[in-house]
């Protein structure tokens, strides 16, 4: 990374969900419109066949015909209205969002490099986006909305998607499956593609609740309606479920005790959240964590941490993010150490890197500083130099050059 050039490929690695979420939304809208068209027009077709039958009779009641025609008109008007609504309230806004996001990514290509103030603003927006994503995932919805409003990035974040997920999750944690089941039926095809068993698990849980309340007849009816269709893949589970009716809720028999365990609801809510993320091509961990992993691992050095015998690190640098033990230093414990095969020596006086233009000089006691900083110090102190760390003094001419590579 010697040049200032932007690593666009590296940056885009984390941006796939950014573009895909509105795109997946467009697909969902298309599927809904298709459903509407099929439902209304098939009914109209059937009605038209009836009309043909009536007409073939020769003698017919005009009122009957008019009734059927009216129903057809009604259907077509409903379809027109539904499609228009869908277009205005869903398609057009989603197009706008997708366009905004694609243009946001496009702007990277016209930036001159990391020094470009445009890029600084882009990076600031990116961090804001990640913070909104993190806040939404951890349930801090108000904070997320506040950031989005203040920084005007509502189109660049997925607040609605996450609030929806949260709503269904909360319902599950209050032991209600209805919202989750509605979501499953909306996303039937996509769930089938990823071979998700979420719908079955939800139906099974409702059945278990019926069994827990000893509503045995209702349970059997329920199982016939909703569980049997899954028999091919879940026969053992269904058999076990049917046997559950025999055991009371406080049974100690292990497999049936597990089925009655209320912990299942928590697992259901986690499974739902994962399925929702997968369907929307969202990652399972907040993007902020992914970026922090990379950043912290690149910075983590033994110099940032206390020695193993407990004495504090003498080389703590207030500017280094990983040196801060209360904040990022604590988080850096979970990432690997950085790997370096090349040396980079930083002067403790000026903070500048010591290289061929600014050679390192060594005191007789072994402490090293940059030539520029030492020459500046000597000019102010009449040829004398003092080591800031030990207090030893000597003449500038006593210092020797040191070679590190």
């Amino acid at each position, binding site marked *: 990374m010697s040049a200032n050039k932007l690593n666009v490929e590296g940056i885009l690695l984390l941006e*796939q969900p950014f573009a895909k979420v509105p795109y997946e939304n467009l697909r969902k809208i298309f599927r809904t419109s298709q459903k509407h068209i099929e439902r209304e027009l098939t009914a109209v077709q059937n009605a038209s066949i009836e009309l043909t039958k009536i007409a073939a009779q020769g003698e017919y009641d005009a009122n009957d015909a*008019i009734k059927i025609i009216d129903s057809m008109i009604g259907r077509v008007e409903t379809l027109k209205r539904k499609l228009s609504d869908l277009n205005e309230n869903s398609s057009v806004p989603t197009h706008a969002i997708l366009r905004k996001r694609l243009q946001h990514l496009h702007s990277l290509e016209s930036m001159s490099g990391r020094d470009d103030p445009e890029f600084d603003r882009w990076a600031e927006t990116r961090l804001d986006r990640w913070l909104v994503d993190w806040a939404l995932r951890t349930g801090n919805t108000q904070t997320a909305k506040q950031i989005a409003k203040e920084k005007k990035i509502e189109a660049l974040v997925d607040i609605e998607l996450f609030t929806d997920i949260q709503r269904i999750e909360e319902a599950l944690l209050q032991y209600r499956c209805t919202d989750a089941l509605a979501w499953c039926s909306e996303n039937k095809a996509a769930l089938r593609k990823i071979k998700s068993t979420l719908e079955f698990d939800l139906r099974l849980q409702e059945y278990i609740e019926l069994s827990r309340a000893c509503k045995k007849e209702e349970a059997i009816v329920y199982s016939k309606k909703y569980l049997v269709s899954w028999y091919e893949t879940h026969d053992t589970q269904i058999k076990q479920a049917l046997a559950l009716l025999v055991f009371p809720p406080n049974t100690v028999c292990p497999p049936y005790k597990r089925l009655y365990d209320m912990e299942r609801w928590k697992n259901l809510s986690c499974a739902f959240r994962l399925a929702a993320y997968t369907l929307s091509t969202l990652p399972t961990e907040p993007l902020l964590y992914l970026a922090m992993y990379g950043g912290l691992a690149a910075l983590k050095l033994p110099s940032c941490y206390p020695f193993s015998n407990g004495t504090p690190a003498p080389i703590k640098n207030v500017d280094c993010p990983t040196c801060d033990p209360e904040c990022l230093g604590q988080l850096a414990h979970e990432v690997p150490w950085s790997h370096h095969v090349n*040396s980079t020596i930083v002067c403790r006086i000026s903070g500048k890197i010591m290289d061929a233009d600014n050679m390192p000089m060594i005191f007789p006691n072994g402490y090293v500083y940059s030539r520029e900083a030492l020459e500046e110090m000597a000019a102010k102190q009449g040829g004398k130099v003092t080591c800031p760390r030990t207090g030893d003094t000597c003449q500038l001419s006593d210092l020797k050059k040191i070679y590190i590579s």
Partner: protein
Amino acid sequence: MDAPLKELLKLEKLEEFPSSSSTSRTAIKSSSIPDPLEALLQSLQELKQQVKTGSHPIALQDVAKLVDEKKKEIDEKQREIHSSLGKLGKSIDKKFPSPLPSSPEMFTSEASMAALERTISQHFVRTGQFDTSDAFRQEAGVDVDPHFKAQCVEMHRILSALENSDIGPALEWVNANRSFLSSRSSPLEFHLHRSHYLRLLTSSSPPYLEALQYLRSISPPLYDAHSQEIHRLLTCIIYLPLSKLISSPYADLANPSLHMDLQPTFAREYCANLGMSKQLPLRVVGDIGGGGALSRIEKGRKVMRERKSEWSQTNELPIEIPLPPENRYHSIFACPVSKEQSTEANPPMMMGCGHVVNKDSLEKLKKAAGRVKCPYCPAESFTSSSLRVHF
């Protein structure tokens, strides 16, 4: 991103739905879905009229054909839209050749979550997002150190004054912290005055009395350190107004960044005075991670998987991530012989010739009679005369 944007445009045209309220669109003959529906509606209305007035029943049989025809039209349109959607999806996928790296659960322990919340709330306060920080405190229950918050509020008060070209609060702070600034040889005070003077100059007309009086009043203490620059500030007057100044040898004085740079310069000095880091920690970490570090780590991981080799025992990253100079906070010494980083247990040692290797490597280079030969220059020296180096 040109290709996806083009596909999106095509899709939008196909899905256009002329709404009843838009008058401009009715003039354009767009062949979208409402048209066959409209036609169908019209025919049905006509049919109804015909039946009411008792006309030929054959018309009823035609209805079935008509409905089928219109449905086919609509299905055809839907197919076009579907294919356009597919093309859009493909063009987007092309822009992201590698999938998002999978990651295990991170930062789940209580200590980590607390540290993360603390980091984020400090970030909000430090960047002046006080409303957001309040919302966060209410939702997550994370408290901010009131002292820290007060310092950030103060900093933002001065920064917003600077935004409005008011250098007053900044000068107050400079006066209060003069010794700190002079120990760092900071040009902040001079920059502040220079900006104000230039604003006075470019917004007034000859003989620029106000500006000159201002310069006279502030010059004496600043003259020693900035005499040449003060001279330039005076002589640039011959090239006013601003339009001429831009193409003169004093063009740098017309650069708006002179005024815009005041805020970051001030923020740097303010934060250094309080022992805060000069950059926002979250931005630093985020920019490194999001700027290519992850893709390198992923590539490294892929290569190791292909070679079926294990990660090193020391839980280090498999590859080096190059850092720009502004992110070098510590000295890193990698022994040129062993390529290992120096540690407390294995410190860097300088031999008599001036070359440095790690202690372990020094041991390995030992020859008879306590002498050691440097691998880089032909000089030999005594092991006992090697000096422990502190970078």
